[in-house]
Protein backbone atom coordinates (compact mmCIF):
# COMPACT_ATOMS: atom_id res chain seq x y z
CA UNK A 1 0.00 0.00 0.00
CA UNK A 2 2.92 2.31 0.66
CA UNK A 3 4.13 1.82 -2.91
CA UNK A 4 0.71 2.80 -4.20
CA UNK A 5 0.68 5.82 -1.87
CA UNK A 6 -2.37 4.35 -0.18
CA UNK A 7 -2.99 6.06 3.17
CA UNK A 8 -2.50 3.10 5.51
CA UNK A 9 -2.17 5.40 8.50
CA UNK A 10 -3.38 3.46 11.48
CA UNK A 11 -2.79 0.00 12.93
CA UNK A 12 -4.99 -1.24 15.75
CA UNK A 13 -4.83 -4.16 18.10
CA UNK A 14 -7.84 -5.69 19.80
CA UNK A 15 -8.28 -7.20 23.25
CA UNK A 16 -6.62 -10.51 22.30
CA UNK A 17 -3.33 -8.68 22.73
CA UNK A 18 -3.99 -8.16 26.44
CA UNK A 19 -2.47 -10.36 29.10
CA UNK A 20 -5.41 -12.29 30.65
CA UNK A 21 -7.78 -9.71 29.22
CA UNK A 22 -6.47 -6.97 31.52
CA UNK A 23 -6.71 -3.39 30.30
CA UNK A 24 -3.37 -1.62 29.85
CA UNK A 25 -1.39 -4.85 29.57
CA UNK A 26 -0.11 -6.93 26.69
CA UNK A 27 0.67 -10.62 26.46
CA UNK A 28 4.42 -10.77 26.85
CA UNK A 29 4.59 -14.31 25.46
CA UNK A 30 2.48 -14.07 22.29
CA UNK A 31 3.10 -10.38 21.76
CA UNK A 32 6.65 -10.05 23.02
CA UNK A 33 8.22 -6.66 22.25
CA UNK A 34 4.92 -5.12 21.15
CA UNK A 35 6.05 -1.66 22.32
CA UNK A 36 9.09 -1.74 20.02
CA UNK A 37 6.89 -2.76 17.08
CA UNK A 38 4.63 0.21 17.85
CA UNK A 39 7.58 2.58 18.05
CA UNK A 40 8.73 1.25 14.68
CA UNK A 41 5.27 1.97 13.22
CA UNK A 42 5.37 5.48 14.65
CA UNK A 43 8.86 6.04 13.30
CA UNK A 44 7.37 5.28 9.86
CA UNK A 45 4.69 7.93 10.36
CA UNK A 46 1.90 5.54 11.26
CA UNK A 47 -0.33 5.66 14.29
CA UNK A 48 -1.38 2.98 16.73
CA UNK A 49 -4.71 2.49 18.47
CA UNK A 50 -4.98 0.16 21.43
CA UNK A 51 -8.46 -1.13 22.16
CA UNK A 52 -9.39 -1.31 25.82
CA UNK A 53 -12.58 -2.36 27.57
CA UNK A 54 -14.31 -0.29 30.22
CA UNK A 55 -13.99 -2.77 33.11
CA UNK A 56 -10.93 -2.74 35.33
CA UNK A 57 -10.28 -6.13 36.97
CA UNK A 58 -10.68 -6.02 40.75
CA UNK A 59 -9.61 -9.63 41.43
CA UNK A 60 -5.87 -9.45 40.78
CA UNK A 61 -3.32 -9.94 43.54
CA UNK A 62 -3.30 -6.67 45.48
CA UNK A 63 -0.43 -4.48 44.38
CA UNK A 64 0.10 -6.45 41.15
CA UNK A 65 -2.27 -4.55 38.86
CA UNK A 66 -1.59 -0.86 38.75
CA UNK A 67 -4.79 0.33 36.98
CA UNK A 68 -7.04 -1.10 39.71
CA UNK A 69 -4.89 0.12 42.60
CA UNK A 70 -4.60 3.56 41.07
CA UNK A 71 -8.33 3.68 40.30
CA UNK A 72 -9.07 2.93 43.96
CA UNK A 73 -6.64 5.63 45.06
CA UNK A 74 -8.28 8.15 42.80
CA UNK A 75 -11.83 7.09 43.59
CA UNK A 76 -12.92 6.75 39.97
CA UNK A 77 -14.97 3.56 40.23
CA UNK A 78 -18.75 3.34 40.65
CA UNK A 79 -19.86 3.24 44.27
CA UNK A 80 -23.06 2.23 45.99
CA UNK A 81 -25.66 4.93 46.42
CA UNK A 82 -24.71 7.43 49.12
CA UNK A 83 -21.74 5.30 50.09
CA UNK A 84 -18.01 5.11 49.59
CA UNK A 85 -18.28 1.33 49.10
CA UNK A 86 -17.53 -0.01 45.61
CA UNK A 87 -20.12 -2.09 43.82
CA UNK A 88 -18.75 -5.62 44.17
CA UNK A 89 -17.85 -7.49 41.01
CA UNK A 90 -14.99 -9.00 39.10
CA UNK A 91 -14.47 -5.73 37.34
CA UNK A 92 -14.95 -2.18 38.48
CA UNK A 93 -16.48 0.29 36.09
CA UNK A 94 -15.42 3.85 35.87
CA UNK A 95 -18.13 6.16 37.11
CA UNK A 96 -19.54 8.20 34.26
CA UNK A 97 -20.51 10.88 36.76
CA UNK A 98 -16.93 11.27 37.87
CA UNK A 99 -15.03 13.76 35.80
CA UNK A 100 -11.75 12.38 37.14
CA UNK A 101 -12.13 9.32 34.96
CA UNK A 102 -11.35 11.39 31.91
CA UNK A 103 -7.81 11.89 33.07
CA UNK A 104 -7.63 8.33 34.40
CA UNK A 105 -7.33 6.58 31.06
CA UNK A 106 -4.58 8.54 29.39
CA UNK A 107 -1.65 8.25 31.81
CA UNK A 108 -2.06 4.46 32.10
CA UNK A 109 -0.24 3.81 28.87
CA UNK A 110 2.87 5.28 30.37
CA UNK A 111 2.92 2.33 32.75
CA UNK A 112 2.71 -0.42 30.13
Amino acid sequence: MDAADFPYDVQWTDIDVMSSGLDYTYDEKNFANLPSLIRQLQANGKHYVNIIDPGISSVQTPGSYFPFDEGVNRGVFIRKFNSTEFIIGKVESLSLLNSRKHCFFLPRFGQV
Partner: protein
Amino acid sequence: MNFIHLGVHPFLLNPEFAQNQSVQFHGQFFLNSNAMDVDLQPLPAVTYTTIGGIIDFYLFTGPTVQNVIEQYWDVIGVGSRIKINYNFILVLFCLQKPTMPPYWALGFHLCRYGYNTIDNLKDVIRVNTR
Protein backbone atom coordinates in the same frame (compact mmCIF):
# COMPACT_ATOMS: atom_id res chain seq x y z
CA MET B 1 -27.22 27.05 16.61
CA ASN B 2 -27.02 27.44 20.36
CA PHE B 3 -27.46 23.77 21.04
CA ILE B 4 -26.21 20.55 19.48
CA HIS B 5 -28.72 19.34 16.94
CA LEU B 6 -28.92 17.63 13.60
CA GLY B 7 -29.02 20.02 10.71
CA VAL B 8 -28.06 20.70 7.14
CA HIS B 9 -25.09 22.86 6.26
CA PRO B 10 -25.10 24.17 2.72
CA PHE B 11 -21.48 25.21 2.56
CA LEU B 12 -19.71 26.19 -0.64
CA LEU B 13 -15.97 26.40 -1.04
CA ASN B 14 -15.13 28.40 -4.12
CA PRO B 15 -11.67 28.62 -5.74
CA GLU B 16 -11.06 31.53 -8.10
CA PHE B 17 -8.12 31.19 -10.44
CA ALA B 18 -6.25 34.26 -11.63
CA GLN B 19 -4.44 34.51 -14.98
CA ASN B 20 -1.16 33.69 -13.29
CA GLN B 21 -2.68 30.47 -11.91
CA SER B 22 -2.72 31.82 -8.36
CA VAL B 23 -5.87 30.87 -6.53
CA GLN B 24 -7.98 32.61 -3.95
CA PHE B 25 -10.80 31.00 -2.06
CA HIS B 26 -14.00 32.24 -0.55
CA GLY B 27 -16.73 30.34 1.25
CA GLN B 28 -20.50 30.64 1.48
CA PHE B 29 -22.70 29.25 4.19
CA PHE B 30 -26.46 29.60 4.08
CA LEU B 31 -27.68 28.94 7.62
CA ASN B 32 -31.15 27.71 6.71
CA SER B 33 -32.55 24.23 7.16
CA ASN B 34 -35.64 24.56 5.01
CA ALA B 35 -35.94 22.53 1.86
CA MET B 36 -33.85 24.23 -0.79
CA ASP B 37 -32.29 24.03 -4.19
CA VAL B 38 -28.73 25.13 -4.75
CA ASP B 39 -27.98 25.62 -8.42
CA LEU B 40 -24.61 26.31 -9.99
CA GLN B 41 -25.14 28.61 -12.96
CA PRO B 42 -22.93 29.02 -16.01
CA LEU B 43 -22.39 32.77 -15.48
CA PRO B 44 -20.74 31.60 -13.11
CA ALA B 45 -23.12 32.09 -10.21
CA VAL B 46 -24.90 30.21 -7.46
CA THR B 47 -28.62 30.42 -6.88
CA TYR B 48 -30.10 29.45 -3.54
CA THR B 49 -33.84 28.82 -3.51
CA THR B 50 -35.44 28.00 -0.17
CA ILE B 51 -39.07 27.60 0.82
CA GLY B 52 -38.74 29.33 4.20
CA GLY B 53 -36.69 30.60 7.06
CA ILE B 54 -34.65 33.76 7.19
CA ILE B 55 -31.75 34.86 5.01
CA ASP B 56 -28.84 34.13 7.28
CA PHE B 57 -26.03 34.03 4.80
CA TYR B 58 -22.32 34.06 5.49
CA LEU B 59 -19.49 34.92 3.17
CA PHE B 60 -16.04 33.84 4.23
CA THR B 61 -13.47 35.96 2.52
CA GLY B 62 -10.48 33.65 2.89
CA PRO B 63 -8.32 34.26 0.96
CA THR B 64 -6.63 30.89 1.52
CA VAL B 65 -8.59 27.68 1.77
CA GLN B 66 -7.31 27.30 5.32
CA ASN B 67 -8.68 30.77 6.17
CA VAL B 68 -12.10 29.88 4.77
CA ILE B 69 -12.32 26.67 6.79
CA GLU B 70 -11.21 28.48 9.93
CA GLN B 71 -13.81 31.20 9.37
CA TYR B 72 -16.51 28.59 8.76
CA TRP B 73 -15.54 26.64 11.89
CA ASP B 74 -15.67 29.89 13.86
CA VAL B 75 -19.31 30.26 12.89
CA ILE B 76 -20.43 26.71 13.61
CA GLY B 77 -18.52 26.51 16.89
CA VAL B 78 -20.47 24.64 19.57
CA GLY B 79 -21.87 27.11 22.08
CA SER B 80 -20.80 30.00 19.95
CA ARG B 81 -22.62 33.29 20.10
CA ILE B 82 -23.00 34.59 16.61
CA LYS B 83 -23.29 38.24 15.88
CA ILE B 84 -24.95 38.63 12.54
CA ASN B 85 -22.82 40.29 9.93
CA TYR B 86 -23.76 43.39 7.99
CA ASN B 87 -22.70 44.05 4.42
CA PHE B 88 -21.23 40.58 4.34
CA ILE B 89 -18.40 41.54 6.66
CA LEU B 90 -18.14 38.77 9.15
CA VAL B 91 -18.15 39.69 12.82
CA LEU B 92 -18.45 36.86 15.26
CA PHE B 93 -17.53 35.75 18.72
CA CYS B 94 -16.86 32.18 19.47
CA LEU B 95 -16.53 30.47 22.85
CA GLN B 96 -15.62 27.00 21.77
CA LYS B 97 -14.95 25.26 18.50
CA PRO B 98 -15.77 21.70 17.52
CA THR B 99 -12.83 19.36 17.56
CA MET B 100 -11.27 18.74 14.18
CA PRO B 101 -10.26 15.10 13.69
CA PRO B 102 -6.56 14.61 13.05
CA TYR B 103 -5.81 14.21 9.35
CA TRP B 104 -4.37 10.72 9.83
CA ALA B 105 -7.65 9.58 11.38
CA LEU B 106 -9.21 9.91 7.92
CA GLY B 107 -6.73 7.40 6.53
CA PHE B 108 -7.00 3.63 6.29
CA HIS B 109 -7.27 1.73 9.58
CA LEU B 110 -6.26 -1.90 9.89
CA CYS B 111 -7.76 -3.83 12.77
CA ARG B 112 -8.93 -7.29 13.70
CA TYR B 113 -9.62 -9.45 16.70
CA GLY B 114 -7.41 -12.51 16.56
CA TYR B 115 -3.95 -11.59 15.34
CA ASN B 116 -3.07 -14.05 18.12
CA THR B 117 0.70 -13.61 17.87
CA ILE B 118 2.98 -10.71 17.17
CA ASP B 119 4.36 -12.61 14.16
CA ASN B 120 0.92 -12.56 12.54
CA LEU B 121 0.66 -8.87 13.30
CA LYS B 122 4.10 -8.21 11.81
CA ASP B 123 3.14 -10.19 8.68
CA VAL B 124 0.00 -8.09 8.25
CA ILE B 125 2.00 -4.87 8.63
CA ARG B 126 4.68 -6.15 6.25
CA VAL B 127 2.35 -7.15 3.40
CA ASN B 128 0.43 -3.90 3.75
CA THR B 129 3.41 -1.57 3.71
CA ARG B 130 5.40 -2.94 0.80
